[in-house]
């Protein structure tokens, strides 16, 4: 059974169709890459799933339950955690306290939350920086913290919104390793990126959006040779010149 099922999901802002009848199935234990050029509707889709926007049409099913339009905090309680494209760490409190806020999603006890938060920090390699004020971290560490906060909520599905944008090659490689580790821990991952190089090596399947529509869904090897995808990313001109020889 699919862990997450998006059925004919539509979201329009006035006349703009940000998501146009999108169908996606995410199975348990998979890493799904969601790619597309800027403005393709990836973040909007994310927000609709996570309860930040009410969809204009269609449904979202999670663990066999209709979660369409539920508020974000309930979606999180059901087991979907997300990160934000522009990091939203609580900058005035420590790294550990940030992660503890996430951990309180599954407990009322401070001691339990602290234990869970320390485990997650260790898992993400942030343990040495746990007593730093979050606002003082580097961007790479902030992204890592964003990841740790989401992970601490105890999700079965982790949705990462451009968790690797703005990182250098070493940092990106580390982030990819982290995503792999998360999947090994039994958590399903939905990964939004517009950098293809990040998504291809780790995704089991890749979904491509363009102008709010799903234009392709396949294994990574086939996606990179898909006509529609190349057209969407490089434009008609390059698409044509590529075909001629």
């Amino acid at each position, binding site marked *: 059974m699919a862990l997450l099922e998006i059925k004919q999901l539509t979201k329009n802002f006035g006349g703009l169709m940000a998501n146009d009848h999108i169908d996606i199935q995410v199975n348990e234990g998979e890493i799904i890459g969601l790619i597309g050029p800027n403005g393709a509707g990836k973040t909007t889709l994310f927000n609709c799933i996570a309860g*930040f926007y009410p969809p204009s049409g269609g449904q979202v099913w999670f663990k066999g339950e209709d979660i369409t339009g539920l508020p974000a905090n309930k979606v999180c309680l059901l087991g979907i955690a997300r990160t934000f494209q522009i990091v939203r760490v609580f*900058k005035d409190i420590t790294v550990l306290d940030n992660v503890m806020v996430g951990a309180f999603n599954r407990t009322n006890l401070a001691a339990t939350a602290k234990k869970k938060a320390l485990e997650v920090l260790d898992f993400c390699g942030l343990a040495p920086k746990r007593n730093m004020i979050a606002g003082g971290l580097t961007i790479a560490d902030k992204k890592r913290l964003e990841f740790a906060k989401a992970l601490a909520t105890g999700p079965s599905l982790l949705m990462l919104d451009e968790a690797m944008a703005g990182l250098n090659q070493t940092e990106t490689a580390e982030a990819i390793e982290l995503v792999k580790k998360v999947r090994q821990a039994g958590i399903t991952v939905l990964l939004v990126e517009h950098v293809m190089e990040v998504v291809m090596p780790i995704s089991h399947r890749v979904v491509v959006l363009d102008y709010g529509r799903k234009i392709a869904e396949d294994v990574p090897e086939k996606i990179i040779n898909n006509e529609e995808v190349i057209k969407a990313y490089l434009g008609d001109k390059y698409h044509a010149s590529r075909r001629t020889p």
Partner: protein
Amino acid sequence: MGGNKNKWLLLASGIFILIIYPLIFTLPFPRHLMIMIFLYASLGLAWNMIGGYAGQISLGHAIYFGTGAYTSTILLMKLGVSPWAGMLVGGLFSIALAFIIGYPCFKLAGHYFAIATIAIGEIAQHWMLNWDWAGAAIGLTLPILPESLINLEFHTTKVPYYYIAFGIFTLTILATYGIDRSKLGYYFKAIKGDLEAARSLGINVARYKFYALALSAFFTSICGSFYAQYVLFIDPDSVFPLMLSIIVCLIATLGGVGTVWGPVIGAFILIPISEFTRIQFGGGGKGTDLIIYGFLIMVISIYQPFGVIGLARLFRKKEAP
């Protein structure tokens, strides 16, 4: 750790001094001064729960203070209910009021929330000024009852008031400490830090904002009931003024918002200034304390936005190797 041991020693000696204080200072004024410090420190701590921890700046807290004062007084005058029970009923009324006020106001963000709370505070004061059954603008003079703990009235000495105020202060600080260390405190800080991020981590933002306001209103209301029993006269100008709402906010801001000890430090700085200038200048100098206070706030907000407690932390950091 040595630092921790020093902290406990400081705390223990602080408590000891406060317990023996009325035995050393036998004149009424120093005792009155300390009672006022306890009262305003408790008010600052209560305001800090919603304004400091949860970051929702309320400038209408006098409404809960007034509710506490009027509820216990009216229950005592009309039904002969003990002020202690009145205090509790006033607290519960204030929680209900917090819900009624919070429900529409929490939909407003940032400054708009603050403006709405000012408006509601003003409405409440004008309502009370015209409500004949509750004494209207003339106010209510509490009946003079025999001195006793049950009646919460003492006419010959301030010492019992001192210990009761100390008790209320201790209760408020313990509650703040409890919030600081528990899920509530973490969630309040998350709401203050970033609403969207808080929601994404499973926090029911509306519910936790209400918890913060309810706790804050409850403790503010208890202070109001105590004030009524201490002064034995209340009117809308003394328990519902906008100035009171602003002062409790300033106490917390000066000391350091979102910390356990910040509002306590704020009260220990402001209340002596306010009481001494009152004595020095009398009625003609009304507001002198606020001029000094306004100056302190400007200095603090420019150089150290985290308040006096932030300043102390800065020094401690510099000392550490």
